[in-house]
């Protein structure tokens, strides 16, 4: 169980070195993306001027304050509270996100499914689990919002955050078919009958 400090963008080799249960701290840049952003990009064919290749995206829609554009807030937004949403809703976009935009890391909560795991294996990607609901803490790892695109979707715009010491995050899914979430789900499935029996409910 190694700890990795990854400065984004990353290479495929760096991602292939990650194994489930390792921990990661991200440095430099992180993109915020979620339901409406992904629907716009991949169902409606909208393109972004932001360059995502080799980068990490986090499933989020932040609380922000609109401010005058200045060196500290080059996008005209100040972060207030930035947290993470449930990843599974966005399962069907992982392949497109990797293939078309070159994304290599997804930061989220709750884990993703088999299609994502397959895409990670084929193209070299990983899922970094953050603690959902710990947004006040997460916000302290974000220095600024340095760019925004598709802002008509606000708050579900495509955000670019400047980050510092973003983590530790847990490698929940890797590029070798490993998934901590699948492992736990399997374990839970095996315990179900015993739990129902303890309630005198066995089938």
């Amino acid at each position: 169980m190694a700890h990795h400090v990854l400065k984004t963008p990353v290479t495929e080799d760096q991602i292939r070195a990650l194994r489930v249960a390792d921990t990661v701290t991200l440095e430099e840049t992180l993109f915020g993306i979620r339901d409406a952003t992904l629907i716009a990009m991949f169902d409606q064919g909208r393109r972004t001027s932001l360059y995502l290749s080799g980068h990490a995206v986090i499933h989020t829609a932040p609380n922000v304050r609109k401010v005058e554009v200045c060196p500290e807030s080059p996008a005209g937004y100040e972060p207030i509270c930035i947290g993470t949403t449930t990843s599974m809703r966005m399962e069907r976009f992982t392949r497109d996100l990797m293939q078309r935009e070159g994304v290599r890391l997804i930061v989220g909560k709750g884990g993703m499914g088999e299609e994502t795991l397959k895409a990670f294996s084929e193209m070299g990607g990983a899922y970094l689990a953050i603690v959902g609901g710990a947004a006040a803490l997460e916000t302290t790892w974000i220095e600024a919002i340095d760019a925004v695109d598709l802002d008509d979707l606000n708050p579900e715009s495509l955000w670019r955050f400047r980050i510092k010491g973003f983590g530790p995050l847990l490698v929940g899914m890797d590029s070798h078919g490993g998934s901590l979430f699948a492992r736990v789900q399997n374990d839970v499935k095996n315990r179900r009958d015993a739990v129902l029996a303890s309630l005198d409910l066995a089938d």
Partner: protein
Amino acid sequence: MELNLKEIEEISKTLYIQALKLLPDDVKSGFDRLLREETNETGKAILGTMIQNVAVAERTRNLLCQDTGIPIYNVTIGRDVHFDGAALKQAIRQGCERATHEHPLRSSVVHPITRFNEHTSCGLRVPIINFDFDEREETVDIEMIPKGSGSESGSYLKMFPPADGIKAAKAFVIDRVIESGGRVCPPTVVGVGLGGTSDLCMHLAKVAATRAIGSICADTEGAKIEAQLSKAVNELGIGPQGLGGRSTAFEVHVEIAATHITLVPVAVNIQCHSARRARAIITPGGISFGV
């Protein structure tokens, strides 16, 4: 007592912001208990981060979670309180809008078909305002709950026949907790509604999910099921964030209502670990804030 609607607007604004920032003491104690009982190392580390987040939110006066939720106001009106009902609803809505603009907060509320966001945390029939009445003299009790979507997606309803009985209802709860897994941000409060009509049953599940940790179902039979299910869900191994461990739920809460002779209605509504709520009690003596 004549309700001052300007005051209600101000309280409705304050409650929304306060609920988003300060976790109730019963939830904080709930975290401490889970951490003491957790044996899984990943689970322990995650609970530790959650506890740390509560402290960071207090220190930095920030929101606990970025999800500002769907705003719910539960208004309980006692005896001898005078007000214009339509204006009261308007005042609460105005307070909710002002919290969103003045803080500012992310408006998480959209039209369900067009997905249009008014950026007010309001929309058609939202905020949800539930009115009830009780015996307290000259008292108005307003509880505010920002209901986040991760856990709200863990909502289920089933109308079993009497032949399947309460046994089927209990198994339904266990299976829905398994189905929800880590997506509902465990450790959770699993709210269970038993009885009523379909809509009442679902509402009871929400009441149960948002009740204080440590509170017990007023019905003796309901309380028994609560205790059984609370123990059982933490044997499943889902754990904090679905990454394994004992701490799947703080508790299972049950609320019940009488039902039809042909029905065993059961509903599940889940509350994530950011179990946020805030309360104001208004009397002729003044306003007191709490949970």
